């Protein structure tokens, strides 16, 4: 057999097969890194572009592959296999695929090594590129990072397909006949992902509603026992984050950045992540998405939310009953564009009160704190400190300033409804809303809504009456029929006269028109 093949051809063939095996491994591993691969075409070839394909060589992968090959080549009975498996952050692992490069005895003697075999191997590599994106493991690997990672393992010898579960499917990527045997590349992949799905359900709940940070580095540990396989998420060689799983770190992150499903106790962690939250809040002040989960968590009434959204003011939605959040709001207030007033004063006192607020408030019961909230709807929070009142800052929604506090009786904006008429209808409505909200003791539900245009001292009436009364206004005088017909006749009579006047003064009119133009 070998005697039919010239030594040069044999050497070439061996070289081709060896590099083909290495490139195959590169393609497979790169396809499971979780990133999109992009290489450029170039018209001038370099030495490492085997098979006319620009496939980058990741040194670690090459090293592993060479180690597995140990100087041998895939041959009859000696297959090279790349096993792709998934490992969750809890330590469970599952084999997903096994790619096999095999050789069998069927020889194709007539084929030209240096040319046809080479080209066919090249086509086979291209096919491999395409197929690696089609198997289910590709989609899984694109999503790796937080919950799980993808690992690979190269081994030589007999193919082991037992770890793929039952019902696994096989795809044959292609075959190339050579004078010493036929090279076959195939993939066996698992179809039964049941184990996966259970895990995913468990994990998905806590991170629901999170803004997933895709830029968190996935774990890339170099200290891994060989039987565990290597992580597929390889970045540049100098980025070796040892140790903890991103999953664990992320759960920390999750707690702290999550507003959605975290129970109130976890909210205390917010204080430790100042900058992030400030950023988070300022960027997304008006975003309903951010706030509504938070609102639900605390059970706040929606009407309050709407009022807050109109002006974009801070105050209402971010108003937390807890101390830690109090400090959060207070920080945020200075960032509000609408607070035209004494910002410096505010921020200073806010800082001063931050610790105070945190320590002194006892947010034991969400319900209790809810009532506290509604009573003190708006800005500057729990403590009846006399220093800062919303009114003194000339905020447009000063109506939400704390009321029912003795120290603020002299504040005109904060007074209950008998105050002089407010400048804008909007303000009046909020004012009245707020007043109603505060009028009740511990019950925020009752709303005695006052319409915007009805002021207390002018027309004391409720919305229904107001509406009914003004629903059928008397007709406008100019529109009533009997008058209109008369005026029509008059108009007609006076027309000729008017025309005469206009013609006389035509020059004047022309000058006027020119002036306008």
């Amino acid at each position: 057999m070998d005697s039919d093949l010239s030594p040069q051809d044999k050497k070439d063939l061996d070289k081709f097969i060896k590099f083909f095996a290495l490139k195959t491994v590169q393609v497979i591993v790169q396809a499971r890194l979780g990133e999109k691969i992009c290489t450029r075409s170039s018209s001038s070839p370099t030495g490492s572009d085997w098979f006319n394909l620009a496939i980058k060589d990741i040194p670690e992968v090459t090293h592993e592959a060479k180690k597995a090959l140990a100087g041998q080549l895939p041959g009859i009975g000696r297959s090279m296999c790349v096993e792709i498996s998934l490992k969750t952050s809890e330590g469970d692992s599952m084999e997903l695929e096994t790619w096999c490069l095999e050789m069998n005895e069927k020889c194709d003697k007539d084929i030209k090594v240096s040319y046809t075999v080479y080209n066919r191997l090249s086509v086979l590599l291209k096919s491999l590129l395409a197929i690696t994106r089609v198997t289910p493991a590709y989609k899984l690997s694109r999503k790796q990072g937080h919950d799980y990672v993808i690992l690979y393992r190269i081994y030589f010898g007999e193919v082991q397909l037992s770890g793929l579960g039952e019902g696994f499917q096989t795809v044959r990527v292609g075959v190339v006949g050579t004078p010493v045997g036929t090279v076959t590349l195939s993939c066996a992949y698992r179809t039964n992902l049941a184990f996966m799905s259970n895990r995913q359900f468990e994990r998905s709940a806590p991170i629901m509603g999170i803004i997933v940070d895709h830029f968190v580095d996935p774990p890339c540990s170099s200290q891994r026992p060989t039987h565990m396989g290597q992580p597929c998420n390889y970045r540049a060689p100098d980025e070796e984050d040892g140790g903890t799983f991103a999953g664990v770190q992320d759960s920390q992150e999750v707690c702290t950045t999550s507003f959605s499903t975290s129970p109130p106790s976890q909210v205390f962690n917010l204080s430790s992540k100042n900058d992030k939250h400030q950023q988070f809040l300022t960027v997304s002040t008006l975003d309903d998405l951010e706030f509504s989960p938070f609102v639900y968590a605390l059970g706040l009434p929606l009407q309050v939310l709407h009022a807050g959204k109109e002006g974009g003011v801070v105050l209402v939605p971010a108003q937390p009953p807890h101390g830690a959040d109090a400090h959060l709001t207070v920080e945020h207030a200075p960032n509000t564009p609408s607070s035209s007033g004494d910002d410096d004063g505010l921020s200073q006192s806010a800082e001063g009160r931050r610790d105070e607020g945190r320590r002194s408030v006892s947010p034991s019961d969400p319900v209790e704190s809810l009532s506290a909230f509604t009573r003190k709807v708006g800005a500057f929070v729990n403590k009846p400190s006399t220093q800062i009142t919303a009114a003194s800052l000339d905020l447009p929604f000063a109506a939400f300033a704390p009321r029912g506090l003795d120290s603020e009786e002299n504040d005109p904006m904060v007074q209950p409804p008998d105050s002089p008429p407010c400048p804008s209808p909007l303000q009046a409505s909020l004012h009245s809303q707020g007043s109603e909200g505060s009028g009740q003791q511990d019950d925020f539900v009752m709303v005695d809504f006052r319409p915007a245009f009805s002021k207390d001292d002018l027309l004391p009436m409720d919305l229904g009456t107001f509406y009914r009364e003004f629903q059928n206004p008397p007709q406008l005088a100019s529109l009533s029929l009997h008058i209109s017909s008369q005026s029509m006749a008059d108009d007609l009579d006076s027309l000729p006269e008017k025309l005469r006047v206009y013609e006389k003064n035509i020059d004047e009119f022309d000058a006027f028109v020119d002036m306008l133009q």
Partner: protein
Amino acid sequence: MLALLHTILLHRSTGKFHYKKEGTYSIGTVGTLDIDCDFIDFTFVRVSSEELDRVIRKAVSEFKDALSNSGSDGMGQISLEFYQKKKSRWPFSDECIPWEVWSIKVNVVNLANEQERQICREKVGEKLGEKVINVVEVINRHEYLPKMPTQSEVDNVFDTSLKDVQPYLYKITYQITDSLGTSVSTTMRRLIKDTLAL
């Protein structure tokens, strides 16, 4: 659509040929790019060549426009044909002899609501995967490939107009039939054209 066409072309493109004086040539390399489909959860690999991408996109969007103009429930077929040019003597012009033709049949489906669309999208994604596997299978049968040409003949086999890659000469054509089955007329037209061409 793009996925399939690109997959085929990927296999049928090679690096740019550079001819050296002694009658040997060196082949450039072909880079690849992963592309995610916009509406379907599927990723395919294509040759990283902007010009080739542009050409394919243009052809596909023409096909798409024709399909949407034809009415709601149209069917169409787009063909990618690899051919070889054969120089003929005067007065006949060059002949194009196809050696491989890929036809993709497409049906336009109207979906009522978002849920149906989602289901359809998933199904199409799976189908696309299967089709890619089919394409790969066929290509790997290595049935026929034109032999490598000499420098003077390279234009007869390869498309040398692109800067960075060199696919085999290809042509994209399409035809639309709407559901009324006016394909009868197209068949007639084709018959007549063929007889005239002879």
